[in-house]
């Protein structure tokens, strides 16, 4: 195998795939990236694959391929080398089987020799993609992910919450594609009109790591993403790069019943002011709970934190509210996470009481809903 490729194109392709590779691996080949060089009429193309056995990212780049072939080499090392090469350099990658098999990487006066493992040992995810295929605008997919992924659980016991639940549903005669995430304390929901062809696809729980990778890949490029969803796998095709992932085998809970419908104590407040004020007073919250107490009265919100060791903090904010006084506590981080996703200047918080779920709405985006469970303070 031998090919020459422009440093920028190589860096971009390796950058796309190398994040999948775990830093510590018990299976040596999973630390490697698979390089496959093919010659074609237009010159040549190299594909780069990395996997952690649960997901696989493949990216392709154009190259001058003089000898087609395949080999695997350490992904992080290769990426670091390429990153440090001078901008605009041509990089030659060469591998020849022999007594001392190495991948040689050379550019200008730099030469590297990297250990390799045979391409035949590299695990490839089967590409038999049955399932529903549809196209979705990158910006739409970004929105679904950004508005919800912060609420994905990291706790292992309820593994079916360790991902984003993506599903289609028909409501009031319209079809929606909806993403939901919850960690049991809060819930985030974002939806959009279902893209053409999306209906009928299985509801899938996409693992957190897959979501993170997909989100990174979404930043490069514009236009549409091709999605294929089956009950066992999901595949995203972003231009040259594709991401294929297993999905979490489990059923997502019936989240609809924890979204409060009748909360009638409505507070409207400037989202930025609320977020900053919560951030300030929570400076002295206990590390673990980060609790902040809200006292909500007509026209005025008082945020307070009382910490026996660290002292106390109080801040007031102007609000729109004309209901009975309410004392309620929240985890400061949960409030700030939600405020970070509010598109409008103001945000609407709908309360029931101090121990029931609170609904948070974005006045400029009626396709998102957030539910926050209070802290008992």
């Amino acid at each position, binding site marked *: 195998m031998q090919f020459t490729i422009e440093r920028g194109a190589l860096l971009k392709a390796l950058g796309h795939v190398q994040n999948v590779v775990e830093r510590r691996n018990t299976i040596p080949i999973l630390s490697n990236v698979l390089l496959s060089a093919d010659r074609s009429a237009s010159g040549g193309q190299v594909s780069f694959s990395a996997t952690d056995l649960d997901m696989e990212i493949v990216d392709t780049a154009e190259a001058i391929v003089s000898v087609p072939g395949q080999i695997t080499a350490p992904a992080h090392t290769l990426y670091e080398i390429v990153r440090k090469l001078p901008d605009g350099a041509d990089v030659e990658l060469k591998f020849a089987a022999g007594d001392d098999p190495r991948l040689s990487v050379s550019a200008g006066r730099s030469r590297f020799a990297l250990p390799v493992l045979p391409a035949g040992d590299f695990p490839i995810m089967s590409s038999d993609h049955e399932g529903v295929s549809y196209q979705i605008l990158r910006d739409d997919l970004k929105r679904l992910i950004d508005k919800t992924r912060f609420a994905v659980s990291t706790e292992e016991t309820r593994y079916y919450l360790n991902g984003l639940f993506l599903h289609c549903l028909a409501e009031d005669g319209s079809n929606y594609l909806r993403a939901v995430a919850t960690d049991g304390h809060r819930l985030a929901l974002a939806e959009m009109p279902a893209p053409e062809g999306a209906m009928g696809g299985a509801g899938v729980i996409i693992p957190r790591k897959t979501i993170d990778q997909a989100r990174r890949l979404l930043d490069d490029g514009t236009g549409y993403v091709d999605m294929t969803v089956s009950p066992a796998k999901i595949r995203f095709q972003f231009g040259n790069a594709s991401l294929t992932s297993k999905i979490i085998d489990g059923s997502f809970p019936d989240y609809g019943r*924890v979204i409060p419908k009748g909360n009638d104590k409505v507070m409207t407040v400037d989202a930025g002011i609320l977020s900053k004020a919560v951030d300030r007073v929570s400076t002295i919250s206990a590390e673990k709970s980060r609790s902040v107490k809200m006292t909500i009265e007509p026209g005025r919100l008082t945020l307070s934190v009382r910490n026996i060791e660290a002292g106390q903090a109080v801040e007031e904010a102007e609000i729109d509210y004309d209901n009975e006084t309410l004392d309620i506590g929240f985890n400061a981080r949960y409030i700030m996470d939600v405020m970070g996703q509010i598109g409008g200047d103001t945000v609407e918080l709908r309360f029931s009481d101090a*121990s029931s779920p609170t609904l948070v709405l974005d006045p400029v985006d009626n396709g998102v809903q957030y*539910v926050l469970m209070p802290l*008992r303070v």
Partner: protein
Amino acid sequence: MDSDLPEMRQRKIIHIDMDAFFASVEQRDHPELRGKPVAVGGGSERGVVAAASYEARKYGVHSAMPSVTAKRKCPDLIFVRHRFDVYKQVSRQIRDIFEDYTPLVEPLSLDEAYLDVTENRKGMASATEIAEEIRARIWETTQLTASAGVSYNKFLAKLASDQNKPNGLFVIKPAMGPVFAASLPVKKFHGIGPATAAKMNRLGLYTGEDIRNQTLDFLEQHFGVSGRYYYGISRGIDHRQVRPDRERKSIGAENTFFTDTTDFDTAWGFLDPLIDKVWRYVEANDIKGRTVTLKVKFSDFRIITRSRSGLVPVMSKPELTGYVRALLEGVFPVSKGIRLLGVTLSSLGERAENETEQLSLSL
């Protein structure tokens, strides 16, 4: 019996008991409920009254009564949802007042505590004066009334607080103690429930004096270890200390059947209020327990216990109910009649005073 105990200085004990606590808090915060029969607790068919206002008590409504019965006794009864957060906050306020007088405060629940004021922080000589001051300060701070009992031991102080309820004070002076205990009907004694009272009546014991006239042997023969306690209190003697650091190891409730039973459904129906009582305590005090124990005493006084422990605490009443039922199912069929059933939750973990609890979505 007291002769072998070391000579003790006369103590000054106050028992403070908030009047119809949960219900009074609700009436305080919702003026439209004042003067009306109010029950705190589930108004649902299976619910139980957690507390009743004095207006409701006139109709015979009392705590732990099934909501259905309460509604029948008092058709105008207003059910309100409990707000334990508020009750706890008030409880903290009154606890702060107690602490101004003495560090020796032993809370029995959110609304009740023993105080040993023999030595007190204000250097006041009169326990009665302290009790009055505390009652006044409770009113000032919370707009709620409390009753106080003052005496020289816990048993009599608790009896005393009940004498002039609500919003009253009663003192049992040392000279009065034995007389007072002797005159009391047995069912008024703390720790003597309806079934034990009935048994005492069958033995011809109706008052404290009747108990006092029995030998220790007689009482122990009929009431086991409790006999010794009855022997003491019938003489107005109770050496239990006020223990401020008393840490609960378990939460339990038990009750004796009027007639022994061998029927599963009867036994199960009997457990329901016990589970309810335990769970109310759990909720009101923010305690979580991992071990559920069922205690069964048979007609021959043989006692067996069956328990299950989880890695995580019991989180809900239905969960607790399920465990208790499974334990009871394991006991049946029984060869002897069941005389007493008890439910206990242990392996407790209490939340620290200033710790907060993140509530969960019911997913």
